C-alpha cells in the first residue's frame, strides 16, 4: 500500500516538475520574443519571424536582425550559462551562498577577461579562453586553499570571498587605468551588460553552451544524488570522481565564456538556483530549471533596464538590485533555521 502511495506521489511530483519546467521554457521564449519586438520602434511578431527566417524586411532587418537578435541571444545564453553554473556549485557544496559570483570564480574570469580586453586587446575568442583559464585557476586555488584538515563548505565560501576581494581590486585597477575606456563603460562591464552585443561576442558563448550544456544535463541526475554526500552517492551507483569533474569543468566553462561575453551579470548565478528549487521542489535535477530561470531573469532584467526608466541601465544593475535583497533574505532564512552555516 505504502509503496503504491509513494509511487503515486512520485509520479505526481514528476508531472508537476515537468509542467513547471515547461512553463519556464515558455516564459523564456516569451521574454525572448518580447525583447526582439520591443524597442524604439515596435515590430509585430510576423515581422520578427520574417527576419528570423532570413527575409528582408525594411527597417526591421537591421534593427531586429543586427541589433536586437544578437543582444537577446546573448542574454538568453548568458542567463542559461550563469543559471546552470551557479546551481551546480550551490548543489555540490550544499549551500546557496556557494555560488560562483560570491566565492570568486566569476571574479577570476572577469579579471582575466578585463586583462585580455584592455591590456592585451585580444579578440573575443582569445578573451574567452583567457577568462576560462582565469576561472579554472581561481577555482583550483580556492579549492586547494580551503582543503586543509578536512574540507568544509563554509571555509571554502569565506576563502572564496577573500580571493574575490583581491581579484576585484585587481579588476578595478586595470579598469581605472584604461585610457580608451571611459569610466561608464568600465562600470557597465563590472556589473554586466548586454550593450554592444554582436554575433562576434555571441559565437564563442554559443559554442561553449553547445558543448557544455548537454554534457552537464546528462550528469544532472547524478548531481541530485551528489547532494546526499559522497558515500551515499557511491552506494547509489554514482561514480563520484568523474561526475564531479565533468560538472565542475562544465560549470566553469559556461561561467567563463558567459563572463567574457557579457561581463559578470550580478547575482544571476546566485539567484537562479534557489528560485528554481523553490519552483520545482527538491529531489530533481536542478540544472534545467535553474538554466531557464537564469535566462528569463537576464532577458526580463534587460527589458526592465532598457525601457522601464528614464535612463537606460545595464542589465547587471537590475539583477543586482533584485539580487541584493534576495541575498539578505536567504541569509536570514538560512541562519534562522540553523541551516548550513
Amino acid at each position, binding site marked *: 500500500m505504502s509503496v503504491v502511495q509513494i509511487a503515486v506521489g512520485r509520479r505526481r511530483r514528476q508531472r508537476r516538475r515537468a509542467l513547471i519546467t515547461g512553463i519556464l521554457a515558455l516564459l523564456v521564449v516569451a521574454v525572448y520574443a518580447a525583447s526582439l519586438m520591443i524597442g524604439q520602434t515596435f515590430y509585430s511578431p510576423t515581422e520578427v519571424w520574417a527576419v528570423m527566417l532570413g527575409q528582408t524586411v525594411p527597417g526591421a532587418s537591421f534593427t531586429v536582425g543586427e541589433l536586437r537578435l544578437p543582444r537577446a541571444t546573448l542574454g538568453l545564453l548568458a542567463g542559461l550559462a550563469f543559471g546552470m553554473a551557479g546551481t551546480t556549485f550551490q548543489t555540490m557544496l550544499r549551500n546557496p*551562498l556557494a555560488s560562483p559570483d*560570491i566565492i570568486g570564480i566569476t571574479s577570476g574570469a572577469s579579471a582575466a577577461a578585463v586583462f585580455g580586453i584592455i591590456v592585451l586587446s585580444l579578440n573575443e575568442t582569445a578573451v574567452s579562453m583567457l577568462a576560462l583559464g582565469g576561472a579554472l585557476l581561481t577555482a583550483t586555488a580556492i579549492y586547494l*586553499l*580551503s582543503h*586543509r584538515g*578536512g574540507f*568544509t*563548505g*563554509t*571555509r571554502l*565560501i*569565506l*576563502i572564496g*570571498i*577573500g*580571493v574575490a*576581494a*583581491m581579484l*576585484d*581590486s*585587481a579588476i*578595478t*585597477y586595470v579598469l*581605472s*587605468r584604461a585610457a580608451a575606456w571611459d*569610466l*561608464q563603460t568600465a*562600470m*557597465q562591464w*563590472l*556589473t554586466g551588460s548586454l550593450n554592444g552585443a554582436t554575433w562576434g561576442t555571441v559565437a564563442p558563448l554559443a559554442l561553449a553552451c553547445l558543448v557544455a550544456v548537454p554534457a552537464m544535463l546528462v550528469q544532472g541526475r547524478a548531481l541530485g544524488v551528489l547532494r546526499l554526500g559522497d558515500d551515499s552517492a557511491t552506494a547509489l551507483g554514482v561514480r563520484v570522481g568523474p561526475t564531479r569533474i565533468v560538472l565542475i569543468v562544465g560549470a566553469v566553462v559556461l561561467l567563463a565564456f558567459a563572463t567574457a561575453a557579457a561581463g559578470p551579470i*550580478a*547575482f544571476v548565478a546566485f539567484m537562479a538556483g534557489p528560485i528554481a528549487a523553490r519552483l520545482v521542489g527538491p529531489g530533481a535535477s536542478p540544472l534545467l530549471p535553474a538554466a531557464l530561470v537564469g535566462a528569463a531573469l537576464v532577458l526580463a532584467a534587460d527589458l526592465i533596464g532598457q525601457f522601464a*526608466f528614464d*535612463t537606460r*541601465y*545595464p542589465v*547587471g*544593475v537590475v539583477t*543586482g*538590485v533584485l*539580487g*541584493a*535583497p534576495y*541575498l*539578505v533574505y536567504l*541569509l*536570514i532564512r*538560512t*541562519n*534562522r*533555521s*540553523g*541551516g*548550513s*552555516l
Partner: protein
Amino acid sequence: MSAAPTVAPPPDAATLRRPAGVRLAWMGGTAVVLALLCVASVAFGVREVTLDEIIAALGGSTNGISEAAVVARIPRTVLAMLVGAALAMSGTTMQAVTRNPLADPGILGVSAGASLAVVIGIAFFGLNAPYSLMGVAIAGAAGAAVFVYAVGSLGRGGATPLKLALAGAAISAAFTSLVSAVLLPRVDVMESFRFWQIGGVGGATWDRIGAVAPVLAIGALVCLATTRGMNSLALGDDLATGLGENVGRTRLVSSAGAIVLCGAATAVAGPIGFVGLVVPHLCRLLVGTDHRWLLPFTAVAGAALLVAADVVGRVIAPGSEIEVGIITAFIGAPVFIWIVRRQRVREL
C-alpha cells in the same frame, strides 16, 4: 569596574601581559617607522623632488613645481595617517566587541553601508557639506553594523565568527551592487564618485582634514575610554558580568566609537578594506591582548600601514598611482584567508 586580568588571569597570561619594556619598545619602534614613512610619503611620488626642495616647501615656499608637489603631498600623508589609525582602531574594537577574529569594518559591511549612505545622500539629496556627509556616513555605518549583527546572530550559536563574516560579506556585496545602481546613470558626477568604489586618500585637502579630525578624535576617545571593558568582554559575558562589568553598556559604547571612526573615515577616504582586520592581528602578536596597550598601538600601526600603502601605490606604477584601497586589499585578503584557514570550522 574592576580590571579583569588581575582578578582572573587567563591561562596565557604571558601573551596578555608582555613586559612593559617590550611593549614600549614596539610602540617606539612603530612610531619611528611611521615617521620614516611620512618622510617617504612626502619625498616619493610621481614627481621626483630633492631634499632641499622638501625643506623649502616645509618652510612654506611654493615657488617651484616640486615644492608645490611636496606641499600637496603633506595633507595627503596626514589624511592617510588619520584614516589608517581610525580604521585600525575601529577594527580592533569590533574584534573585541564581537569576540570575532574576522571582524573588520570592510568585511562586516560597515564601510559599504557608509558608502551607500553617502552616495544616496549626494545623488538624491544633494548633500555636499563635509559634516552632513559625515553624519550620513556614520548613520549608514551604524545601520549596516546593526543589520549585519542582527542577521549574523540569528539562529543557533549566536553570532559565530563565520556567520558574522558571511553575513557581512553578503551584505557588503548587496550594498556595493546598490552603489553601482545609484552611480551608473549619473555620468556627469561619476568621475568624482569613483572614489566611493575604490577608496583613496588622493583628494585630501586641509579643509577636509579639519572637518574629519574632531569626529575621529571623539570616536577614538570613546574607544580608548572603554579599553578596560573590552578586556573584560574577552573573558566571556558571564565572567565579565560576574566581575561587575556592565556588558551591554560596554558593548554599546565601544561599538558606537568604532562606528563613528569607521563612518567618518569612509566619508573622507571611501571604502578601504582589510586595514581593520590585518593591523589588530599583527599588533596582538607584538604587544599582547591587553586592549589598554593594544588600541593605541593599533592606531600607530594602522597609520603606518596606510601611509606605506599610499607610498607603495605611488612608487610601484611609474607615472601613475594605485589607490590605497587596492593595495590594502592585496595585503589584507591573504591575511584574511590565513585566518580563515586557522579557524576550526564546524560542518553540519
